[in-house]
Each structure stands twice: as C-alpha cells, then as structure tokens.
C-alpha cells in the first residue's frame, strides 16, 4: 500500500507524520480496554436476547436459572429496578431495557444473568424459559405493514426541502434527465472490540469503564437514569478498539451492567458477544434512494431531486439523512428538492455508521452523476467541474473554503485519468480481465462540539519543562492521542517528546462525542483557548519578577516559542519557561471557559458560512470475464480537510475509510431471515469485510488550506470523508469495466451475472 500523503504538492500546511504514541503499547498488548478494566472481584453478566422479532413476553421462568451454580442475580422485566428515562438526547433508543414485556426486534435484551464466572453465567442463561405471544414481524422497506414517518429533522437541518420548481425545470426543452433508484443494505459496524462495560458502586457513587465514543455523555445519561448527580458518576475509557458510530449513543447494555452491579453489590463485567453486536448497538439502516437529475446541453444541472427512504425499529431514533448529506451540498442547481422517509420495522435499532447520510447519499448521487455524464457523453470529472458550487445549494451560504477543483485536478493527475477510454468494456488487464476506471466526489460537513481542555506546564525531575494536555475526549483508534500530543507541543512551543496527553475520563475537562469527525476540530479549538489561558497565567507569574523582560506586555502580545515565553514582535525578549515555573506551584495550568459557542462564537459564523470538506476518489477495478467478481486494483483519494495535524494518522483514516467503503461496495450486507427477522450472518466469517489481500494500492493526498474560520487550529476532521463517494467510484468503475450498472449494493457476482 502506498501512501504519499506527505510528499506531494500542493498541500495544506501539515504537521509532522508522527507514529502513534500508543502504537507500541497497542501492538504489545499493554493498553487496557473496557473489558480489561483493572477492577478486582468482578462478576460476570450475560445478556439473554429475544428470539422473536415482534410480540410480547407472556411468561418467564427464571427459577432454574436462579438455582444454577454460581448465579448471583437474574434481572428480567419483572424485577428490573425502575429507572428514569430522562435526557433523551443521549439515548440510542426510546425506551430503557427490560422496561416492559413488548418485543420490538429479534436480539432485544430480555434478561441479564449475573454469576461468579463467565462460564456459569453463560450456562445459566441457557436455562431461562421464555414464552411469547408472537406477531408477524414487519421486515424491509417494502413491507406494507410498516408505519411510515416523514421526519422534519432537527440536528441535520431540514429533511423535507424544496427550492425552486424541480418538476417545471425537468420538463424544460432540451433537458437531459436521469432518474434511477439506488439501494444500500443494512451494514453493521463490526469494530474489533465488542462493546463492553465494567460497572461498580462505592458509597453511592458509580464508576463505569465503558467502550464508548463519549465519556461525558455516558456520565450524564447514567446520572440521569439512576437519579444521581453527574459528579457521582465517573466514566473511563482510555482506549477504544474501533467504534465507527456504534459506541456513540447510549445503548441499553451500559445501563444493565450498572443495574446488575447495584443488584449484586459487586463490580459487574458485561461484554456483548459478536452476535449481539449485530443487534445491541445499531447498524446503518437499509436505504432506497431515487435520484432525478436534469441537465442542459452543457451539463449544467437545472434540477435535482433526491427521495430517500430508510428504516428503523419502533424504539429507534435514527434517520439516515441521505439527501441532506449529499444533494443539499454538492452541486449548484437552481431547483433542488429532497425528502426523507422512515419505515418502522422489527429490525434492531439503527444508528450512525461512519458518515451517516453522506455515505449512502453520495453512493446514490455520485452514481447518478456518472449516469448523467454518460447520457451527456461528458467526462465525469468535467461534469462535476461544470456543476461546481461555491456555496451550499440548500442554504446559499458560501463555503468557508472549498478546494474540490484541486482535488479533481490532482487526483486525475496522480491516477492518470487522461488515459481513460470512456467506452465501457474497452480496457483490459494483461490477464484479459476487464478493467474499469471510475471516480466520484467525496464530501463531509465540518462539525465541532463544545469542549473544554486544559494544558499544564511543570518542571520535570531533570529540570526541563513538561506539558500535559487533557480533555474528556476519546481516541477510537484514530490517533487522537498522537494528534493532541502534537497539538499541545505546538501550542506551548515544546518538543513532542516532552508532552503527554490524557483523555477518556469524565473527570477531565468535559467534551463531546467523538463522532461526526468533530474531535480534532472541537478539542483543537478548546486547546487553543486553553493555551491562551496558560499564556495569561505564565505571563502573570513571569511578570511577578521585578525586571521581567516581559514587563508591560499583555497576554495577546506574547507567544510560547522554543521552551520560552517571548514577546510576539521580538522573540529575543522573553524568559525560559523553566525559570517561570521554578519555585512555584506543582504546575501552572490553562483551562478554557465552558462556552457552548466557543470563544470564537462558531454559531455566529455558521450564519455566514457553510463549513464543509470535499475530496475526490479515483478507482481502478478488474472484473474477470468468466467469474464476475470485482477486485479493486488501486485507489487515489485526494481530500481537502483543512489543516492536517498528522499526515500519517490522517492518511490512515482515509485509507481505512476507503477499505471500509470497498467492503460496502463489494461485500458487506447484514442478512435477515425473511420469516423470523433474525440476523443470519452474525459473525465475522459470514459478514464479509475486506481482508488484507483485498487491499492493493491506496494513495492518499491532502490539498487545501487551514480553515481558520472554523477554529483556531484550522482543521475540519478526517474520520468520515474517506468513506463518502468511494462506493459510487467503485460502482462507476464496474460500469466502465462491464457496461453493467449495479444500483444495489453490494456488487456481488450474482448481480453482475443476472440478465441485463
């Protein structure tokens, strides 16, 4: 795999390509994940799941479970302590677990068995006798029994939108139209680390080790549900073994672990099985999207309509904002409409999965754009350039920065796009396989959640200065530890080696969810503000010495530089940090103020600008003539995500997202039995994701400029954009190779074999 992220001009100012600070500890097995929490005498909880998809529990006989050796407690809807459903915004579902006897989906938790060992808990859990009154489950978007909703949209912006007159524009003379329906199946996150919770109570206080994307949200939700004050709950999560969205919201198992710990008066460990990961912490819902494009003779879009359907359980809260995440943003058009519809089904609750909305939305829109390019006999890159938007079509606000044209240019150059013969089926590999080249645009919004952070400066035993940055944020395996160590070093002017960063503990300065690619930008802004406070504190202390070279300067007039605090306009005027710290308190600290808007008042800027990242993927596939199994041979991905702190970890994020997108395009689908609604392929042998031999050359490049309107660091986040557009680029390449347009993912052999 080649990565050239640090070598190719023109690029945004990037930081150093650092190795992960936790890399060695990870590969030597020395980091502690939630299930490995250093908690003594933990007992084990096992979840019992519903085997039916819809109905009601009519009887539960737990007598033999309770008598089974080692069993300490059995929680069922009958004896589950009454919890309060409050602070709804943090919950993944609209109900609390074991709160009633209703069954909404197969795999729903119906009991918790706690025993002294995992084996005894597992065995005892098989003894629970459950009777159900079964009802026929509602399965699939096409099920006529499904309840239909047309959500308005709160967090996502309007979900039912029309600007101009799409129908009138489409019927205009000389308008070339494309109208097609694209569908994506349910996909399951499947991080390596299964969700796990270790919970214990001490003197009325609850401590929880949880594999989570949001320690502070977990703390707030647990406190609310158990009737505690937030400071009576501590949530720890120093490391996460992958999440992709399935650890973002509060799922029921965390409550159950805490309730079980309360019931038995001992620490309780609860880990979802791989099977339970398919039903207990969400998935990307099924989508069906109809795109209608109309273009004039020059390829300019005169109208765009994007109708999107997705599903969720009756107790789920997720809407997949396909159109709002793609058509609302990507191309200039005077007439734009998009709608979103949710069907209530008896499939486990859905949730965010890497680029929710943007991912399936770009698959549909970018496939349709390819079909339009073919209808117009235009080059796909040219069609996108013609429709370049300098402002978001849905709100008319200019992008703070947009370098998508440069993404196209550099991507095409690195890929060799100019050598493409547009005729489908015209290109061959040396072994005779059909070769296809496809491309698509990537896009993802810039999000930032309110955060606090602190930086402490202190004297080390060796007399040197050390900095420790800290925030209650999370490292999902993305490299956040490393990036924030670099950022701290940059902000205080110390070498990387003299800096540490702490995260994953709700006792640290509070922050938001590590989701929406928001962590680097949100924590980065907080860190920048904290550095300002630190400058203030250090200057104040420095000025206490009579004759300080910094006398008379204000905090705005000094900077940290090379281990010193110096006058910004005259770096020779300053003092060593060690001199300032000497003889003082154990450390001097900067902590930014709690301010939801940030010191830079982001909400005000969001009234004037759209903050959005763009990129482009170029893909080569090979398809054997006789056995139409698609292999991705190479990918070139160019992204503009603002400032890149660490091109190595950022490049890894794009590569990882591309690989995940390859899986989505060609392999991944969660299958359900059409009668029972139970997951059929709930393991990693049957839910097929990419493995190493599937991954050939993936080159990643970054272009653009720091987005200083968005935050003081200038970064926009990089976790999700790589998985937008990639499935379309692959589908477009498959069309180019074979002349076959597959409009339902994944593109498996049978779909390329079925009659045209």
């Amino acid at each position, binding site marked *: 795999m080649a990565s050239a992220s640090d070598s190719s001009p023109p690029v945004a100012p990037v930081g150093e390509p650092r190795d992960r600070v936790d890399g060695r500890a990870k590969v030597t097995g020395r980091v502690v994940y939630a299930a490995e929490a250093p908690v003594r005498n933990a007992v084990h909880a096992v979840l019992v799941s519903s085997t039916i998809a819809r109905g009601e529990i009519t009887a539960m006989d737990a007598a033999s479970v309770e008598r089974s050796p080692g069993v300490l407690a059995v929680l069922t809807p009958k004896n589950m302590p009454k919890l309060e459903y409050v602070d709804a915004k943090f919950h993944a579902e609209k109900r609390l677990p074991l709160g009633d006897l209703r069954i909404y989906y197969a795999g729903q938790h119906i009991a918790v068995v706690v025993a002294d060992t995992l084996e005894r808990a597992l065995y005892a859990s098989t003894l629970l006798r459950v009777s159900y009154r079964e009802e026929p489950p509602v399965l699939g978007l096409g099920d006529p029994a499904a309840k239909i909703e047309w959500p308005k949209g709160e967090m996502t912006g309007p979900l039912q939108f029309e600007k101009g007159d799409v129908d009138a524009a489409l019927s205009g003379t000389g308008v070339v139209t494309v109208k097609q329906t694209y569908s994506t199946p349910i996909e399951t996150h499947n991080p390596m680390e299964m969700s796990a919770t270790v919970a214990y109570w001490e003197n009325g206080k609850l401590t929880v080790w949880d594999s989570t994307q949001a320690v502070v949200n977990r703390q707030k939700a647990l406190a609310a549900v158990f009737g505690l004050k937030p400071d009576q709950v501590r949530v720890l999560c120093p490391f996460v073994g992958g999440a992709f969205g399935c650890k973002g919201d509060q799922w029921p198992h965390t409550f159950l672990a805490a309730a079980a710990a309360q019931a038995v008066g001992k620490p309780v460990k609860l880990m979802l099985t791989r099977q339970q990961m398919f039903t207990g912490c969400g998935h990307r819902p099924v989508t069906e999207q109809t795109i209608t494009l109309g273009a004039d003779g020059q390829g300019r879009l005169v109208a765009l309509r994007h109708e999107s359907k997705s599903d969720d359980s009756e107790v789920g809260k997720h809407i997949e904002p396909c159109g709002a995440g793609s058509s609302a943003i990507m191309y200039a058009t005077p007439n734009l409409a998009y709608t979103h519809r949710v069907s209530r089904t008896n499939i486990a609750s859905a949730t965010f999965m890497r680029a929710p909305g943007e991912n399936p939305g770009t698959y549909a829109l970018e496939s349709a754009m390819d079909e339009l390019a073919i209808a117009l006999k235009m080059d796909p890159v040219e069609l996108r350039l013609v429709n370049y938007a300098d402002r978001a079509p849905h709100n008319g606000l200019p992008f703070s920065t947009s370098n998508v044209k440069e993404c196209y240019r550099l991507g095409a150059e690195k890929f060799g796009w100019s050598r493409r013969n547009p005729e489908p089926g015209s290109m061959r590999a040396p072994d005779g396989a059909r070769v296809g080249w496809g491309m698509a645009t990537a896009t993802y919004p810039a999000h930032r959640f309110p955060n606090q952070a602190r930086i402490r400066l202190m004297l080390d035993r060796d007399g040197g200065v050390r900095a420790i940055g800290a925030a209650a944020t999370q490292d999902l395996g993305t490299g956040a530890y490393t990036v924030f160590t670099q950022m701290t070093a940059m902000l205080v002017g110390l070498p990387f080696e003299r800096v540490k960063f702490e995260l994953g503990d709700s006792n640290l300065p509070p922050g938001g969810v590590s989701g929406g690619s928001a962590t680097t930008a949100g924590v980065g802004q907080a860190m920048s503000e904290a550095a300002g406070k630190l400058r203030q504190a250090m200057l104040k202390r420095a000025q206490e010495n009579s004759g300080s070279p910094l006398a008379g300067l204000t905090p705005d007039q000094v900077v940290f530089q090379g281990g010193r605090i110096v006058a910004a306009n005259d770096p020779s005027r300053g003092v060593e940090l060690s001199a300032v710290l000497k003889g003082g308190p154990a450390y001097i600290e900067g902590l930014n103020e709690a301010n939801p808007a940030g010191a830079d008042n982001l909400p005000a800027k969001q009234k004037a600008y759209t903050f959005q990242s763009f990129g482009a993927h170029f893909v080569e596939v090979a398809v054997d003539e006789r*056995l139409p199994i698609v292999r991705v041979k190479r990918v070139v991905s160019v992204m503009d995500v603002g400032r890149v702190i660490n091109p190595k970890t950022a490049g890894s994020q794009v590569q990882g997202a591309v690989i995940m997108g390859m899986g989505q395009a*060609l392999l991944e689908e969660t299958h359900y039995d059409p009668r029972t609604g139970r997951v059929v392929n709930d393991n990693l042998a049957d839910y097929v994701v990419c493995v190493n031999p599937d991954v050939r050359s993936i080159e990643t490049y970054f272009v653009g400029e720091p987005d200083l309107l968005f935050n003081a660091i200038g970064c926009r986040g990089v976790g999700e954009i790589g998985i937008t557009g990639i499935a379309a680029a692959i589908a477009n390449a498959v069309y180019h190779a074979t002349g076959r347009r597959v409009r339902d993912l994944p593109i498996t052999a049978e779909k390329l074999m079925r009659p045209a």
Partner: protein
Amino acid sequence: MNNFSYILAAQPDEALRDWTGPGRPAYLAGGTNLIDHIKLGVDQPQRLIDVRNLGLDQIEALPGGGLRIGATVSNTALAYDERVLKDYPVLSQAILSGASPQLRNAATTAGNLLQRTRCSYFRDGLSPCNKRQTGSGCAALGGFNRTHAVLGTSERCIATHPSDMDVAMITLDAVVRLRGVSGERTVPLQDFYVAYGEDPAKENVLKPGELITAVDLPATEWFARSYYFKARDRASYEFALASAAVALDLREGLVRDCRIALGGVATKPWRAHAAENALKGTRPTEQAFRAAANAELSSAVPRAHNGFKIELCRGTLMQALQTTAALA
C-alpha cells in the same frame, strides 16, 4: 456453555476405550470446529477425549509409493510438506486457500475430514434443522440460502460441505484408515461421505467411537498435474462460493484420465464423475471443458438465492481445467 470432562488419551486404544462411558463423548483434535459448536450450543458433548497425543502426527512415505498422512498432522504441516507440494500440488493449494494461518496451525487432517457445515440455521442452535435435530425441518429451504448447496441436496437439507482440503483429497483417490474396537478398516474417501438421504445428521460412515488414524494418498504420477481454484466474494479467508480440484493425465494431446471434484456447491465434497466421464478421451479444449462442466451441473438444483452458484461453478471448473491443462 455446559460443563464437560476432558481426557488426554495417550494411545489410540486408550482413546477407543475412553469413548465408552457415561455421558456423550466427542473426540477433540484441533478444536477449530468442535469448540465453536460447543460455544454456540450446537453440540454439547459431556466428555472430550483429546486425540492430539496419539502419535498420529507424522507424514510417512508408503513402501510402494504414496503418502500416509497421520490423523493429527496439522493443515499447515501438510500444506507445506515438500512431497505434497511436488506430487499433490492440488492438496497444498486447497489447504492454503482455506481459513487463516492461525486456524491452519491448529486444524488437523482428520478434523478437516469431519468439518461440519457453515449453514447459519444449523449453527444458530435455534432454527428448524434436520442436521441438528432430526425431523425438525430445514429453515434454509425457505430462508436466506445464498451460500447453500446446489448438488446432492434434498428437501430435508441443502447445507454445503465447506471444506477445501477434502475436495482435493477426493481427486487424489485418498483412502481413510479407521480404527474401532473391532479392529482396523479402510474406506476410500469418496465412499466415506454419504449422501444426506433420509437423515442429514448422518454425514459419513464412521461408526460410533471409530477413530480416523490416517489418510493414505496413492502414488499416481500424473497427480503432479493438479490444481485447485476457488471463487469467493473476498480474496481470502472465506469459504468457497464454488471451487474445483482437478488432476489431469494428459498424453499426446488427449485427456487419458482425470479426477475432478467440486467444493462449496454440494452437500459433501463432490466427486464429479459425470464431468470426468465427459472429459476422458477428449482433447483439452474450452469446448470439452464446458461440456464436462455442463454434464456435472445438469443435475444442480437452485434455490431462492443460490442459483448463481451453478453458473459460477461452471466458470470455476472451466478455469481450473484450463489452468491445469496449461501446466508444464
């Protein structure tokens, strides 16, 4: 997971003796299949008799040529054995196309012969399954059956036999050596597996307690011209959608003799007699290869989601035949 006892047997006869006793016994070798089934609740043996210490882990040359492969020779050791690589390349290729290095290090030769289906309705421990619970029905028939069998099926079971190794072994005329309380016997591998027939739970001719001690491969010179080809969704670590093992005796431009077996499409490792008969005596042309594949697949029965496997298998077999014929 239920409690079970564990016995480490030191001699084959000791293992046979240990078989009789209270509670359901099971032989344990690599455990890559059995332990899964215990965890999933598909199988609940009460006594595990570990057969890894019986001294059956050697590959020996037979006096008249050929190889004797001990029952507990690991898949890895077998795949990288120099004699196998040279004389039976199809076997090495088949093994290395399956599972992962870690699984191949643990899995054994006899264990692989007894590998059970990946049918998710069998493995969920819950759905109607004639293989798991006689007479309960077959959930796969009306369920999601994309990976299920198209050959050798019945209205009682359409579960696919998942092995790669066994498909190659069948083409190599392997003979299974068995040992029971009443002595030793040998069974050609192609007769070792039974058609599902009345009772899909009955997969082979093993008698209760009978132990596989070795697999013999005959010395057949032209088996050196053999090849395994496997089609699957991803490039590695996946069971076959379709696979083909082929050995060709090519002389003077004619297929004098051949062995063909198919994997991933049948309820047992599928010796393709009809294809062999169609190919014998013909010139190795694309037309002949297609005719051979057609002869075998004319009896294939598609279900709701696996019809494509017939066409995929046709392509897989033709690809395997072409490549084998082109071998130097």
